[in-house]
């Protein structure tokens, strides 16, 4: 009795677990240029690009114009660049993944604009060093910015997502412009007033913009809550803001990685004029400083770059210098200790060597272009994906109904057990896909439909055995016991061969075929679980309830 109870408890647990992993939830399906998210209630299963629509790209380093000196480093640089542009794709769950040593896979759900995606991928990286707003001109101008926005009737509330009013491509306006007219102006055209840094708690009605900001750890650094980022982006893009912004100052976003877990995004006010750009950089390497056991990045400039940098750094000793890649500030801006000529060193304190290597990669990415060629491109329209899902579901429903009919017709009452087993199979397979975060592709969906027919096989093997045992006049209890026992070798052999097939498909398959293999593997486990464990439990329960051997129908 207790074994049956334990079995039933385990079944209840499995059902709850799969049910939980399958629960519908709101998923951000796309982020528009203006920062508004469109959400959709989805099942817990991640859909492949061929089912939800989107774009798949495979890129390599272009060596058609002659071999690239260090292809592996070039690929790493390309990956860094593409990753840092991840926001520009405007999709919620982009995937950027290195495959082996020569290819990068980019998956962009929902993207249909081939030209734009290609432009983003193929554009070469742009690196620049900019001094932060040391005079706190931006902080001083905040009251007038707030006032200007308020005068224009613009309001925004802290948790709101009113970024929609900003319109257009705020991101581009904010991050993309490098040839600004502001940069020609002197840095001291606006009188700097001593002022306390605005903090996030400011709630006065006039602080349209400053209410979103919290002070950072240096001049020109602020933090914005992640939920407010779209709103702030929208406000920055307004003409009123741009007019009220002190001349010679530009706003830049930083990386969220700087403040992990806190949901804060750094926002920087930087000098409009870069002190040097990536083309003047010739190399950057991470090193471990043996003496202090701290990670450093050593960088080398070109001869001409060294002259410029020497002049600029002499003027900016003790100032903070932001490293800006493709319009985004990378890491914490280091302070300039002394004049730097051709060779500089960035100290990362007690950061790991990995962080140093990442920064060196960012510098190299901006210094040495990594020419990229797209070797594979697939797009699937959302409408086609929807059709595929609908057709797959129809086929699945038809298959389930027919299989249920056949099994019930053939096995009668025991057939109900097989049908229950099939129900659990469906639940476990879908739940397995959801809880392991596996992606359901079109071949995967087809494989699932196919497996609906195959899944009853284990039960059929067992039931046939039980029938044979019954024919030899064994008691139902013994027949069930022996039936399971004797059917096992064939079930195990059959599933192992299928597992081998699936493993090879997984190993050699790409995208959709991998999805098929994953569905197959999860399906095998689910099938064994439901046919061998669950239906046996129900057999046991059943045999316990009715002691009459005569009524056993199989």
């Amino acid at each position: 009795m207790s074994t049956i109870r334990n079995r039933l408890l385990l079944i209840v647990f499995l059902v709850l677990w799969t049910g939980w992993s399958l629960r519908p939830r709101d998923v951000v399906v796309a982020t528009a240029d203006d920062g508004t998210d469109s959400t959709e209630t989805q099942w817990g299963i991640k859909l492949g690009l061929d089912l939800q629509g989107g774009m798949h790209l495979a890129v390599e380093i272009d060596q058609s114009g002659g071999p690239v000196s260090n292809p592996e480093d070039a690929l790493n640089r390309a990956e860094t660049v593409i990753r840092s542009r991840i926001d520009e794709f405007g999709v919620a769950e982009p995937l950027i993944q290195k495959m082996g040593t020569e290819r990068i896979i980019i998956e962009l759900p929902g993207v249909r604009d081939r030209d734009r995606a290609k432009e983003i991928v193929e554009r070469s990286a742009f690196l620049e060093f900019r001094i932060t707003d040391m005079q706190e001109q931006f902080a001083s101008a905040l009251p007038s910015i707030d006032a200007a926005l308020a005068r224009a009737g613009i309001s925004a509330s802290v948790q709101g997502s009113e970024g929609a009013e900003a319109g257009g491509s705020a991101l581009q306006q904010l991050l993309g412009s490098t040839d600004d007219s502001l940069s020609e102006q002197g840095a001291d055209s606006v009188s700097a007033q001593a002022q306390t840094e605005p903090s996030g708690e400011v709630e006065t009605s006039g602080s349209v913009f400053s209410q979103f900001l919290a002070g950072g750890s240096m001049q020109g650094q602020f933090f914005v809550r992640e939920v407010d980022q779209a709103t702030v982006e929208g406000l920055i893009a307004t003409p009123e803001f741009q007019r009220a912004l002190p001349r010679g100052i530009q706003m830049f976003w930083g990386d969220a990685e700087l403040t992990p877990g806190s949901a804060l995004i750094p926002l920087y006010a930087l000098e409009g004029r870069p002190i040097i750009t990536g083309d003047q950089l010739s190399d950057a390497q991470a090193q471990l400083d043996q003496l202090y056991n701290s990670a450093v990045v050593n960088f080398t400039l070109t001869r001409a770059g060294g002259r410029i940098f020497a002049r600029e750094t002499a003027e900016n000793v003790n100032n903070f210098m932001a490293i800006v890649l493709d319009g985004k500030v990378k890491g914490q801006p280091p302070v300039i200790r002394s004049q730097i000529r051709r060779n500089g060193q960035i100290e990362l304190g007690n950061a790991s060597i990995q962080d140093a290597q990442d920064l060196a990669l960012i510098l190299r990415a901006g210094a040495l272009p990594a020419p990229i060629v797209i070797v594979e491109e697939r797009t699937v329209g959302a409408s086609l994906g929807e059709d595929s899902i609908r057709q797959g579901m129809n086929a699945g429903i038809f298959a389930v109904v027919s299989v249920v009919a056949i099994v019930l017709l053939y096995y009668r009452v025991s057939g109900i057990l097989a049908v229950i087993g099939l129900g659990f199979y469906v639940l476990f397979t879908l739940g397995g896909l959801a809880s392991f975060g596996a992606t359901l592709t079109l071949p995967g969906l087809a494989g699932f439909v196919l497996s609906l027919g195959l899944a009853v096989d284990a039960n059929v093997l067992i039931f046939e055995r039980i029938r044979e045992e019954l024919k030899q006049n064994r008691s139902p209890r013994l027949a069930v016991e022996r039936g399971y026992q004797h059917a096992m070798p064939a079930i195990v052999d059959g599933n192992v061969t299928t597992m081998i097939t699936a493993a090879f498909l997984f190993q050699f398959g790409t995208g959709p075929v991998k999805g098929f293999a994953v569905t197959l593997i999860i399906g095998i486990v689910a099938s064994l679980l439901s046919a061998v464990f669950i239906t046996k439990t129900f057999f046991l329960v059943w045999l316990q309830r009715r002691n009459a051997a005569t009524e056993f129908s199989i």
Partner: protein
Amino acid sequence: MFRFFDEASYDFLGMKKKAFVIAFAFMVPGLLFFLVRPVNLSIEFTGGTFAEVRSSDPNITTEDVRNALNAVGLGGAEISLFGAETEFAIRARLESSEEGAEETTQQTADAIERALTDSFGQDVVEIVRTEAIGPKVGGELRQKALLAILLGFLAIFIYLSMRMEWRFAIAAVAATIHDILSSWALVSYLNIEVSLAVATALLFIVGYSVNDTIVTFDRVRENLHRFKRNDLYQLLNKSINETLPRTVLTSGTTIVATLALVFLGGEVLRGFALVMTFGVITGTFSSIFIASPLLHTVEQRWPGRDVHGVKAMADGTTVVRTGGAEG
């Protein structure tokens, strides 16, 4: 109690000749036909450009699409209906002279998109799917698909040899080779486009067919413990007949599922579903009519010893050398 093939006692081994004739009559012409009409590889394997187009105007024909593409110099592209009168598939395979030109396929995709929207209007035609596969990726996919099928096959053979006596393994593998070859023959007869999905189906058939054969052979193995090996002919027939209800039932439910895919699963999956359906049929056929008769033939040529007699089975049954029954 309803049971088909209950107490069946067909002489399957007696049908060996007929079965082999049927098998060869199906396989050989199909495979020979490949000499006349080569395998229709999808652009995933050859490299090239594919576009699936939907039009909302039922008057647009493949001829119109061809004219539109001709106008931009894409006359070489293959145009066919894709499941419906208003859906077209456009395939432009890479010529060997274009090898190395990784960007060509994307330019072709751009050109197709532009040509169609320009001639029919953006709101009339919709490009619902495009694939631009460079020659390098195409070659790799070809290689990987082949490797997956060959290595998968090898792994299954090794597993079978470990689980069973080599005679059984050989018979099972030969039956599986039959299934692969006749699936290829089907691909040839129907000129099915061999895509990644179809290649997947071909490997899956290997797994399914072996699975089917294993069930019968497991029964043979079991019966060998109860009966003498020199009655192998009867023993094999008995084993097939005993597992016949299961074979028929499982094949039945599986075919129902693959047929559901053929008729309801949509055009993208049709080739895959057709090959799968056929695979289930041929897998069932071969495990009944090919695998066991072959095992019998192998046994006659290289007789094994039975459990009661002399030699142990590969699964580790004790050897008792008391002389006696051989083949």
